[in-house]
């Protein structure tokens, strides 16, 4: 990185830090005036969780090829939090949730999501480490998708929440799931995966929605404020792009 890039990176981090520090206070003050649009996929997910309990069919959360190291740390933690919140909603039922991943380190993260969700709701009997299944990814990630197509009918899944990193093979999974009446909510941050999910999944968390999904569901001002912070950053970015275009036109 050049010194200009380093300075810009530090400035960006400082701006985000200041916003995260200041915005929660403002949000708490004007909470009633602020209304946020909850992604339709999250509303649908709550409904599916309730249906899953009523029908006695388990809910599945897939981490795909997400890894908690390399560049996937934030993605893994964000999906683990979304999984935790979704599993909390099905903890009132009798069925143990099913989780899948193709990374052995993510196995531990997935098991921790189940443990936290069930312990918080005082349902330790629903914690089963064997319900977290490892499926190999293969060189192109297709082996995981192929494995998942078999999990859906065998486990009689009601809903499949698939997040993390999953490419166009999402369409294979969604197609197989729909044949077995399994609803698919996709939260992949892979562009090809998002396109495939847009066409074949029942609901989709698009782009940044997958990262901040837990903030929409939680009722804490600090989490609520993160959505506002992201919106502010988005407006700032739009302004920077417009100014750059304007300066370019002026020469």
């Amino acid at each position: 990185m050049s010194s200009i890039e380093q300075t810009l990176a530090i400035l960006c981090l400082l701006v985000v830090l200041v916003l995260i520090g200041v915005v929660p206070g403002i949000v708490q003050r004007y909470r009633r005036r602020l209304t946020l649009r909850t992604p339709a996929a999250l509303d649908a997910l709550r409904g599916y969780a309730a249906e899953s309990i009523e029908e006695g069919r388990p809910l599945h959360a897939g981490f795909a090829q997400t890894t908690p190291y390399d560049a996937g740390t934030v993605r893994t933690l964000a999906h683990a939090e979304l999984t935790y919140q979704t599993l909390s909603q099905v903890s009132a039922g009798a069925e143990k949730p099913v989780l899948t991943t193709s990374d052995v380190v993510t196995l531990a993260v997935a098991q921790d999501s189940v443990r936290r969700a069930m312990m918080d709701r005082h349902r330790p009997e629903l914690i089963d480490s064997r319900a977290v299944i490892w499926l190999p990814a293969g060189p192109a990630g297709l082996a995981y998708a192929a494995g998942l197509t078999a999990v859906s009918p065998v486990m009689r899944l009601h809903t499949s929440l698939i997040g993390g990193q999953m490419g166009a093979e999402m369409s294979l999974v969604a197609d197989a799931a729909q044949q077995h009446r399994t609803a698919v909510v996709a939260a992949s941050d892979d562009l090809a995966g998002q396109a495939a999910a847009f066409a074949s999944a029942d609901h989709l968390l698009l782009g940044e929605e997958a990262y901040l999904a837990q903030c929409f569901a939680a009722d804490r001002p600090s989490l609520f404020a993160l959505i506002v912070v992201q919106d502010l950053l988005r407006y700032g970015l739009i302004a920077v792009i417009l100014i750059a275009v304007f300066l370019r036109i002026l020469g």
Partner: protein
Amino acid sequence: VRRVRFGAALASGIVLAIGSLTLLGLLVGPDLGVFSTLADVLALRQLSALFLRLAVVTAAVAVLVGFINLLLVHASRVARRQAGSPYSAVLLVTFIGAIVVRIGAPQVYTLLLEDVQVPIETALAILVLVTLVLGAYRLLLRRFSWSRALFLAAVLVVLVGALPFAALAPVRAFSDLLVAIPATAGTRGILLGIALATLVAGVRILIGQDRSYRE
């Protein structure tokens, strides 16, 4: 009054300290004047490199533990003859076989990988294309929306444009235009959104607001 558990506070403190030091060590280079001098005095770059090495070693150990756990789960399933134990037996035999073949006959290992696994994955990749179009069509029939119809039309235009027929040159030109302008613009928009979300979520984890290591 909210009670703060000592363990949670300690975990948050460790994350905050190690995360901040690593980030500063990576960000502050040698050309930032007084900040670089400060980083040199505090040995931030060396600390950052040390933490990264520790993370790599921890990840490697976690991979090893994960594999051992996986083998133990499947071995116990076979020993107890639980449901699905034949699949577990296949996994164990394949695992041992792969190690033996890798050490004893590496050329057979390469042959298995290149002539068995890769063709199977290629066949699946072709299926992806078919299921994508079919899935979009089925979903459109089940729940019509203009955006889904537009998506299906765009997929068909790009697929038809890829056909090697001279008569389809106008379709190809339109397909190239679709890929070059609206698709690229949309891609950049989504990537910028993901980058912003990663930044916000990353800072949130860094300052100890994430719950996963506090509970």
